């Protein structure tokens, strides 16, 4: 048993795998950096202004919240086309509940409204997941049906009426007036992020060294950690750089961005550190192997779709609150932006491969493109053309990447 294939030798392979770096993630970061610089030059410095970057973060939030669950869905070789409609339907129901059912001045109203939306989204997702898992109807069809059903449902809730006058406490979820957390809490979150990155990287490195497991070269680890620290620091600076009008008071991080960070962190933890996350990837790699290993794959599928539904409900709360009103068209075509972000971020449509940080960068890339085009005065028709092209190119890259992979 002394046979060694070339690719399994740690001293061969390409530079990235030798340094235990994710080449795809680095490629994404560089692409975003290039796009930012180009837009900044074309917009004569507006694109990289603090205001624009702050707004960009808010615009990314809705897709950023949903994309982590979409990664899991696609990793399991499924797709969910209904999330834009679930977003619209739950948003509409939350608007009605917030403005017409619960007392507007009750302190619990906003949270209870949010809970209604999340539970409704979760139930819809679980229902669709059960169709896929237990009744073996392809997810493409089930969620295409869902796309029509819940979009129709959003209209039926109020016969197409827009529901306005949402409570201020609910509008906080959208990041509008009073929807930011202020400078000091933002710094605290930044400090927690910094501490987490430093402690985690250092302790992991030392632990692997102690157990004699292969490690990155020290200098690579220092650069990676250093860049992360800089990134967090810059992010906090931008969040705190945007002031309230005519004052020197920092707005701080918008609530939707905070929600996005929390859900992403939770989902990354689920994927990296729980059996549940491990089983999702095992199923994506080889469904039969997962089943034979004793994993309840049907329940797994149902739960993943339920999580997708919950996050669509959460995005529904963000968008409805941001708009300050429930409309039946909220979230139209959102499923495509989310799927595009996941695929651009390296989630393979053939299943088993995907990363939440990558998908998150995919979401940032998509919203950067849209924001830049808006700044340069291109209308929404052009934005759609560019989005579509970027999606096709992303899938092409995935195909090329997989072709070079031994199978």
């Amino acid at each position, binding site marked *: 048993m002394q046979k060694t294939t070339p690719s399994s030798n740690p001293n061969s392979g390409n530079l990235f795998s030798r340094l235990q770096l994710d080449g795809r993630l680095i490629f994404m970061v560089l692409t975003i950096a290039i796009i930012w610089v180009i837009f900044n030059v074309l917009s004569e410095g507006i694109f990289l202004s603090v205001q624009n970057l702050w707004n960009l973060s808010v615009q990314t939030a809705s897709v950023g919240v949903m994309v982590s669950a979409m990664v899991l869905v696609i990793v399991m070789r499924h797709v969910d086309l209904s999330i834009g409609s679930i977003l619209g339907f739950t948003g509409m129901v939350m608007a009605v509940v917030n403005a017409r059912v619960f007392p507007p001045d009750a302190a619990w109203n906003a949270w209870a409204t949010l809970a209604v939306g999340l539970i409704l989204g979760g139930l819809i997702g679980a229902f669709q997941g059960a169709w896929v898992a237990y009744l073996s109807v392809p997810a493409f069809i089930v969620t295409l049906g869902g796309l029509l059903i819940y979009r129709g449902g959003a209209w039926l809730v109020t016969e197409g009426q827009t529901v306005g006058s949402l409570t201020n406490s609910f509008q906080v979820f959208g990041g509008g007036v009073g929807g930011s957390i202020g400078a000091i809490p933002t710094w605290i979150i930044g400090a927690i992020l910094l501490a987490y990155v430093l402690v985690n990287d250092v302790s992991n490195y030392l632990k692997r060294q102690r157990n004699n*497991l*292969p490690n990155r070269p020290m200098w690579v680890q220092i650069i990676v950690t250093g860049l992360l620290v800089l990134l967090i620091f810059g992010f906090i600076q931008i969040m705190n750089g945007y002031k309230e009008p005519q004052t020197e008071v920092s707005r701080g991080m918008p609530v939707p961005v905070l929600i996005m960070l929390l859900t992403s962190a939770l989902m990354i933890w689920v994927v990296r550190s729980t*059996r549940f996350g491990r089983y999702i990837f095992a199923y994506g790699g080889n469904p039969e192997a997962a089943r034979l290993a004793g994993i309840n794959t049907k329940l797994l599928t149902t739960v993943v779709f339920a999580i997708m539904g919950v996050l669509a409900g959460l995005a529904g709360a963000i968008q409805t609150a941001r708009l300050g009103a429930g409309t039946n068209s909220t979230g139209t075509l959102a499923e495509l932006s989310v799927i595009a972000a996941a695929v651009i971020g390296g989630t393979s449509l053939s299943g*088993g491969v995907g990363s939440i940080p990558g998908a998150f960068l995919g979401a940032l890339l998509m919203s950067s493109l849209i924001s830049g085009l808006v700044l340069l005065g291109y209308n929404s028709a052009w934005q759609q053309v560019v989005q579509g092209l970027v999606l096709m190119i992303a899938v092409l890259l995935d195909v090329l990447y997989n072709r070079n992979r031994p199978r």
Partner: protein
Amino acid sequence: MQPLVEMRDISKSFGGVRSLDGVSIDLQPGEVVGLLGHNGAGKSTLIKVLSGAYSADSGQIFLEGKEVKITSPRSSQQHGIETIYQNLALADNLDVAANIFLGREILKNGSLNEDQMEIEAKKVLDRLKVNIPNLKLPVYNFSGGQRQCIAISRAIYFKARVLIMDEPTAALGPQETAQVNELIRNLKAEGVGIFLISHDMHDVFNLCDRVTVMKNGKVVGSCKTKDVTEDEVLEMIIAGKKPRVLRDQA
């Protein structure tokens, strides 16, 4: 001697097709039993009943004399039965440790203990003298032989008493086949009972103490390899004809 495994009168139908029709087989500790027959003879169905992938319509399974109910792959594993499938049932996108521990991960405070799993994986692979330099790589990077050894080390790590191998070497080259065969001999020496499904007559006579031949969902006969010739076994497989040693007994 008390058999390690005894399957008694097992039947299983798919739609109108009777795949298994009152099949009884047994296995002693430290014994390698070759399960032979044409494609469609029912070998794979029979072992899938034992491994919990299918449930039988009727019949009983005994482990060391005690009747057990095997309802799922998990319950089969809990009885110390491990299965190596011919199509290499590994999740190609996961790394070596993740595959070895799939479904039975080591946890620490509720989350995966990756480092511990990597260390344990390295230990078991070293013990089996399987050379895999980087356990963090997804298993699609490795050769068929290496991957089959990973699948086998999964069974070893969880202390299999009964090992079912469905054509473990069908996808492998000669050198890799030799590696796997060597492993089978080591396990046999440790007292593990092995059901081996194979089409390779040479391997069967090399490794097996006994062969059990199936045809059309029934057992043709079971006899010690030292009592029969390759030609007789081929006749059992092709024509369903009992070899002389079994005819003499009757």
